[in-house]
């Protein structure tokens, strides 16, 4: 694959799947510098993965796997990342918050997801984006039955939390 072809595919993927990447970034990184840094890491891994993509899965499944894996590894490299923070802050920002009107209910949902443990965060993202248990199991490496049990627990938890949210009137 030539670099030009790789660049073209990268551009297409970025355009078509940026919402997917943003979701992972927002669930795993909380301030703008961190979100910028994580987005850069995911983009670089996405770029590197292009020649390896054999069309055996959907592009979105492939990208979710890369994005979640990168986010977990990015958390693991927390210290290094912190040391590089200065460099990130001084560099030009890649992400800018869109001027769209804020949706309080969506903000609430993100806050709730970000409170979950790392595996449940990933499962919730996949669940809300309509992935099957089998796809989730392939992406994360858990058994389908384990995915099922956890999904039931996550659903119950989110529904419970939403009832409290309704009581408090957002």
């Amino acid at each position, binding site marked *: 694959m030539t670099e030009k072809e790789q660049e073209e595919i990268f551009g297409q993927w970025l355009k078509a799947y940026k*919402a997917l990447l943003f979701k992972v970034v927002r669930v795993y990184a909380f301030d703008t510098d961190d979100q910028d840094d994580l987005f850069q890491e995911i983009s670089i891994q996405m770029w590197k993965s292009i020649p390896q993509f054999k069309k055996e899965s959907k592009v979105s499944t*492939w990208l979710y796997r890369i994005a979640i*894996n990168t986010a977990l590894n990015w958390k693991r490299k927390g210290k290094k990342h912190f040391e590089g923070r200065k460099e990130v802050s001084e560099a*030009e*920002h*890649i992400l800018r918050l869109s001027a*769209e009107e804020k949706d309080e209910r969506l903000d609430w949902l993100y806050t709730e997801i970000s409170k979950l443990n790392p595996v449940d965060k990933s499962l919730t993202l996949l669940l809300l984006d309509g992935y099957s248990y089998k796809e989730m199991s392939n992406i994360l*490496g858990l058994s389908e039955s384990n995915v099922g049990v956890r999904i039931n627990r996550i659903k119950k938890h989110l*529904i419970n939390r939403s009832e409290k949210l*309704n009581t408090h009137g957002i």
Partner: protein
Amino acid sequence: MEFEELKKIWDTQNNKPMFIINEEALHRTIQKKKNVASWISDINEISLMLIAIVTSAFLIIKNLDNDNIYAFPPAIFLLLTGLYVLVGRIKRKKNENRFDRSVIGDLDHAIANTEFEIKRAKTFVWWYILPVMIPSFLNMMMNDAPLLTWVLVFAALVLSFFVVRWGLIKSQMPRYRNLLSLRKKLLEDVENTDDLMATNAE
């Protein structure tokens, strides 16, 4: 709120992206960072290969014009270890670009690889330094090698020892600790769920 309602809230963001990407800056960053690999591993492997090749070439050239057959086994052994490091490096580079594993599968694979690297680095004295040092020193003693040869061979061995220790302390051990801690964090809850499911099945 029912789960379907939560999903509707979630789906609202698909038509109004929450961020705007500065594509030019992203492109520049990717160009700058795409080839940056783990430089400690790179330095470690390249140094070991260089030390092996240079020392081996030195032993061969020094002994070409005399019939000292004892000089050649350590030289060949050094070349073989250089080759071994090269094969390991190619394998590692290939693995760096694998994206088809699951998240937990990738983590387990990374842990197994790091365990192997640590074991290799910790036993380095036994499989590299001693087998090279003993025949080299015997050979130099039998041939009354000049002081410079002693110093160079000794320095090469000491240098390779420190390069490997440095890689172990600065790169492999911290990486291993981080991987284990992430695995623990990720799987603690998964294993608890598995145990619970097994108990329920009984």
